């Protein structure tokens, strides 16, 4: 140890300057070297370093394998006995590489059946490509039904979920609320599916017996009667609508309409109307304002006024008397008022009940979900001449796809949309490159 140096003690650097640590460093360096190379020779036993040759034969040198690393690279190899901390960039090989081996195993039975090796190889190739395409297809489609949804058996992945659920079960709500902030998963309660009762109409279930390809006469007649009834109703409704809308207005031919318009627009213009007739009219009629001013001439006489006043007073007195009378009679009626009130309550209750019932019925039936109202289309039917009575000759009627769609609408699952009469295509605006434009000069140039 050297003697102490004098210096400050305030800062870190003062302290560094003061202390000499070379001895410690050298010791540590030696220790590290020892770790890297191993124990020093001095500490090793003789048996480890030497061995006694008792056979006396010359040892053959092994041929260096081709796989051995080159000598020039030996300097790059680490000689340290300490294993590296971690490999940093390691490529992770996917497990998919195994696929081919598996595949070869699975098609072993095929190999047995085929004798020639060449053929086997070719077939293998084809099969491999086929399987690959199939696998690709399968990956793209979602038809993997490989589990039972409705068993209590849980998949390995579900474990955590269940644990959380179990924990939630017995933890008090305050604790849960407190922890919900820390463990967001705990608060992630599952919402239950909202119950939604759809319309009870199940028309798909019960086909009319008259729809049979070979029905009895009664059934067929009843089916046709049903349809005819609906159709006549429709026709009647249409006629009514026509009467109410179209037939209300006079229908005029086009020429007449034009003439009428011209007449209307030229009303009072000089040169278009007959002035002579007008003049005659003006001569005969006296001028009269719509609301002529009041004059002193038709003033009420005093007598008339008096009579009116008397009548008014009498009327008022009569009314007052009536009210007084009613007051007295109401006193007698008091005991009946209670009954009346009860009755009123009863009627309102009944109305309420009726309204509720109506609402319930409405809930079951088809409701209006959107702008358009649902109208049931006519059922399919076959006319008697179309019924051949054999399965081979029956012509299918109706459209099941449409029925499906309409039944969904009927059960309030889909809202009724607008019928798309046109398919709206995007308008694509076309531009022409100005270089390709054909001008009259060019036409003249090429003498077209």
């Amino acid at each position: 140890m050297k003697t102490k140096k004098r210096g400050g003690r305030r800062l870190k650097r003062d302290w560094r300057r003061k202390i000499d640590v070379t001895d410690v460093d050298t010791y540590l360096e030696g220790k590290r070297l020892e770790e890297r190379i191993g124990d020093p020779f001095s500490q090793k036993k003789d048996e480890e370093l030497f061995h006694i040759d008792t056979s006396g034969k010359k040892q053959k040198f092994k041929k260096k394998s081709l796989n051995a690393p080159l000598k020039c690279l030996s300097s790059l190899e680490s000689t340290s006995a300490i294993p590296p901390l971690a490999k940093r960039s390691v490529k992770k090989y996917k497990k998919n590489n195994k696929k081919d081996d598996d595949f070869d195993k699975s098609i072993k039975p095929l190999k047995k059946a085929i004798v020639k090796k060449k053929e086997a190889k070719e077939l293998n190739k084809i099969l491999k490509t086929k399987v690959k395409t199939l696998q690709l297809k399968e990956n793209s489609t979602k038809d993997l039904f490989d589990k039972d949804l409705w068993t209590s058996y849980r998949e390995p992945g579900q474990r955590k979920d269940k644990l959380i659920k179990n924990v939630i079960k017995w933890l008090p709500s305050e604790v849960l609320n407190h922890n919900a902030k820390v463990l967001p998963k705990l608060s992630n309660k599952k919402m239950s599916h909202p119950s939604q009762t759809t319309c009870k109409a199940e028309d798909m279930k019960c086909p009319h017996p008259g729809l049979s390809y070979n029905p009895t006469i009664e059934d067929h007649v009843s089916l046709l009667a049903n349809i005819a009834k609906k159709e006549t109703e429709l026709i009647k409704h249409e006629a009514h609508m026509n009467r109410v809308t179209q037939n209300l207005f006079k229908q005029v031919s086009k020429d007449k309409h034009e003439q009428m318009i011209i007449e209307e627009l030229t009303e009072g213009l000089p040169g278009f109307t007959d002035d002579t007739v007008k003049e005659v009219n003006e001569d005969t009629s006296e001028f009269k304002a719509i609301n002529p001013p009041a004059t002193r001439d038709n003033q009420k006489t005093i007598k008339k006024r008096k009579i009116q006043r008397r009548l008014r007073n009498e009327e008022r007195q009569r009314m007052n008397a009536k009210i007084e009378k009613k007051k007295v009679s109401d006193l007698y009626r008091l005991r009946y008022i209670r009954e009346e009130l009860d009755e009123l309550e009863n009627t309102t209750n009944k109305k309420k009940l009726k309204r509720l019932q109506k609402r319930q019925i409405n809930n079951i039936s088809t409701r209006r979900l959107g702008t358009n109202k649902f109208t049931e289309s006519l059922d399919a039917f076959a006319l008697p001449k179309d019924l051949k009575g054999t399965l081979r000759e029956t012509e299918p009627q109706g459209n099941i796809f449409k029925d499906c769609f309409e039944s969904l609408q009927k059960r309030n699952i889909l809202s009724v949309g607008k019928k798309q009469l046109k398919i709206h295509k995007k308008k694509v605006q076309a531009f022409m490159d100005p270089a390709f434009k054909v001008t009259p000069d060019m036409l003249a140039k090429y003498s077209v």
Partner: protein
Amino acid sequence: MPMQKKKFQSGEGARYVTRRAALNKLQLSLKDFRTLCIIKGIYPREPAHRRRAQRGKSGIHILYLKKDILFLLHEPMIWKLRDLQVHLNRLRRAKGMHQKDMIKRYANTIPRVAIDHVVKERYPTFIDALRDMDDALTLCCLFATFPKLKSIPPNLIALCRRLTVEFMHVCIAARALRKVFISIKGIYFQVEIKGQTITWVIPHNYPHEPQKKQEVDFYTMATFADFYSTALGFVNFRLYHNLNLYYPPRLGSYNAERLEEEILEENETSDRVAALNLPLQKTAEDVEDPADAELDLDTFAMDGDESKAEEARKEYEKVRKLKKLFEGLKVFLNREVPREPLVFALRCFGAQVSWDETTFPEGATFPETDETITHQIVDRPDLEKQYISRYYIQPQWVFDCVNARELISVEKYFIGTPLPPHLSPFTVEYRTQRYVPPEEKALTDPSVIVNKDQELLDEISDNDIEDIEDDKKESEDETMDADDEDLDEFDGEMTEEQLAEIKRKKMKVESGTPEVINKGKLRREHNQMKLLKEKMIQKKYRNLYKSMKSGRMKREKEIKLLKYKRRIHERTSVENKRAEIRARRAQAATLM
């Protein structure tokens, strides 16, 4: 001043949201929202007061419950849908930019939106799922018949076909078919699985007719089909495993060569499976066959309602017999007959089926020349070469047998004969009092045999006809006289017994006498009770009761009259025939 209450902050106005508001809340496009709603089973609602629910706005908006939308908000599928949108945008851009490698990459890695959990969520139990299979099967069967269309994803059609065929296979294995009805729309099938009846329609086997786009929204229906096909897949999986079958169905004989063929096949549904003709391979060997499965029904009723229990037992017995209806039959289908529905109907009850190999290459098990064939199903007026060893019948026989739950005699269904009407098994008999002709009775209840003319000829002697005419008068007289006669009889018996009693010693074991039930008296008492009851009817219901009674009487009279007419008709026809025979005999005698 208290806080002012704002309008529509509570009540109906707060409970509903418009579709536009829902879209904003969920941050989805309308297309995605529609898909999501269909898959999750959220439908628009009609409020009680539209004006209030629309927050004072007029017109009709599509409204959803706010609760429902909040429920949708928690669905993890939404994120998938958003990802999908981004992915499709990228794909579209790549296409626009003509970047081939990018297109390939994006097209191959379109994220899959899994809806397995939604199936479980919507159908918490397996029974729930079965209950909703009606729509699913109808839609899937329909989609299976479609060609490749622009608005329907191509793999969906193949998937639907596969799933419906698999479901049919499971029905065959479980012997679940109960009713069949051929309508002009399609063929209705009803199966019973786990106590649930599932009814669906299969369209007639005709080429696809292009649909009008304005009538049906294809995109919406494709979404429905998508959901239903997933549900059907899981239902199939469970059904197969319940019956101890391999789920992607494996057919009985499975060897290396077959495997090779199946791998090489392009279609996702192999024809061998679609043939419906080979039994499925089981995972366990010694399992009870569903056809032989027997249930020990309790002989005593739990609730004391014995008649119901008895009915249930009878029904069960009928179904047990129905399951083995066609057992032992060997049926060959001619080529003009619709193969799939017939094979399904026949195999569901244990028949062996085959067909012409040229019509459907796979699955035919025996040729037409096989002498052990019992029935050949033909749908043409005549056939050139016929074997004596088999019946040539029309396809309706199979379906009528299934509906009648018994093997009907084949005579009416022979080749070329006009068929009896094909009745619907789905009708609910609402009118109890009506005339049922014996032919119709025989269709529903096979124990009733329609009297044939020949039998009548043998049975009835000449005098019988007169007797029958008198029958009616007699019955009327009986009712009138019954009272007096009964009284007399009764008195007479009493005196005899008393006399006998006096003769006998008192302490002696008496031999038992059969209890005499006085039917007339009973009837009389019953009538009296009925009259008393009628008197107790309230005044306001009295007229209704009267009209009901008169209606009943009228209907009874009608039935009686029709029966009587029928009888007369039968007699006259028999008479005519008999006269004919006599005339013929007389002719023969003169010739002799």
